[in-house]
């Protein structure tokens, strides 16, 4: 019955409908349903603390109704709010159902009133904040700030262990070896060339290269390796100079050389 009354009120209140229409023109200007509710609440011309939430819910529903009539698309959250307000309205109008759990209509209305007050309070606070003297507009910082020059000082550290490890590292390096060559076990190519140039005159037939190794160098493996390499390198050099010929029967077979027939030694 009460609801019936409200609806007749709703249809009769031309002023309210006109007001809702005026707001609809500006619907894009609202920041969501709460903002719209806050604006609607101002038409009640009372302190927010004394606002009639029931009346506000009606105002909102009229607004949504008008929007529908004008075939205006309202964003979903406006419609969700409308549904919730319709529910709130029925809660407020119907006598409370003792079997019903959950918050009462009054509690829900009080919360909505709180939300509106809080939003309004934040708006006022924002306005007060922006009205304050502001840096760069009302008061100013130093025009030519002198930056603090950062002087970076680097200190290096190393521990005794680092030092010892570094030393140990240098002493175990493989590439360290060539610098302290034991000269005694090295037969150089120059030495091999000298030796072969003297011997080749006697080599008219194919002779194994190994027979050209210097005396005393055949036994010790290190010496033998060095002498063989130097002799082989020397023989290649002599082939290049046209003094001797070189051949190898097959892979890993002994390398043989002989004096070139018309070669000048």
């Amino acid at each position: 019955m009460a609801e019936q009354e409200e609806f007749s009120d709703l249809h009769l209140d031309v002023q309210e409908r006109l007001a809702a229409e005026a707001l609809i023109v500006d619907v894009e200007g609202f920041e969501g349903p709460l903002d719209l509710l806050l604006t609607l609440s101002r038409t009640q011309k009372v302190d927010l603390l004394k606002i009639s939430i029931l009346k506000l819910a009606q105002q909102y529903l009229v607004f949504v109704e008008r929007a529908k009539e004008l075939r205006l698309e309202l964003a979903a959250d406006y419609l969700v709010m409308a549904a919730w307000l319709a529910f709130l309205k029925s809660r407020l109008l119907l006598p409370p159902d003792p079997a019903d759990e959950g918050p009462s209509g009054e509690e829900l209305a009080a919360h909505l009133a709180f939300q509106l007050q809080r939003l309004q309070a934040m708006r006022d606070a924002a306005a007060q904040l922006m009205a304050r003297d502001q840096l760069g507009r009302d008061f100013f910082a130093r025009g030519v700030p002198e930056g603090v020059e950062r002087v970076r000082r680097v200190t290096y550290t190393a521990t005794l262990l680092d030092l010892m490890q570094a030393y140990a590292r240098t002493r175990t390096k493989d590439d360290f070896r060539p610098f302290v060559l034991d000269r005694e076990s090295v037969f150089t190519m120059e030495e091999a060339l000298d030796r072969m140039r003297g011997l080749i005159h006697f080599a008219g037939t194919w002779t194994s290269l190994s027979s050209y190794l210097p005396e005393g160098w055949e036994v010790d493996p290190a010496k033998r390796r060095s002498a063989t390499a130097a002799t082989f390198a020397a023989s290649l050099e002599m082939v290049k100079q046209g003094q001797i010929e070189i051949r190898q029967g097959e892979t890993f077979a002994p390398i043989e050389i002989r004096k070139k027939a018309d070669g000048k030694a």
Partner: protein
Amino acid sequence: MSDTDSDQDNAVNAPEDSEQSLFEAPPLAEQERMVEAILFASAEPVGVGELNGRMPHGCDAGAALDLLRRRYEGRGVRVVKVGEGWAMRTAPDLAFLMQKETVETRKLSRAAIETLAIIAYHQPVTRAEIEEIRGVSVSRGTIDQLLELEWIRFGRRRMTPGRPVTFVVTQAFLDHFGLESARDLPGLKELRAAGLLENRVTPGLDGPQDDEDATGDDQVDMFEDDA
């Protein structure tokens, strides 16, 4: 004028009486000069800790700062507290002389201004709470703009499901609006007394109720830390 003059005399004379050694801190008057030079040179607020760090060993930047503040009382330039730092700023009543210095700042949208105010008054506050208060979702651009201005920053995560980030205002915010601390926000006491800074949640909804306790605690923490 006469006040500052007498201060100055005291400051200049007193420390000269005391004997100086290589290892003693410079006289207080000299320390005051140092604080003056440092604050003067910097566009940003400087903390007492940093002052002490930059001044010679044994200096008491806090005491020197007190002297300096008094000296600049009523001058065209003032020594102001900004959060944990100190800065020199021109007196606001002389703003009319400064039009030449004014830098055009980007106009903040209504959404940005409201969001900023909500963060300042409710900090630390989550995005969901901001949306609850404004009744509308907060666009990413709004938060980004405030972050870019360095007026807000991320606070601690909430210890609630989802561990949402919170937002708090920065020293640059305090500096910009000439506030010593967030406690000096206009109307803060009244708003709190009216219960309008509480994070009440729609009755019958359980979800965010967990948040409520957490918010309350954090907020108390913040303001008590400052005190």
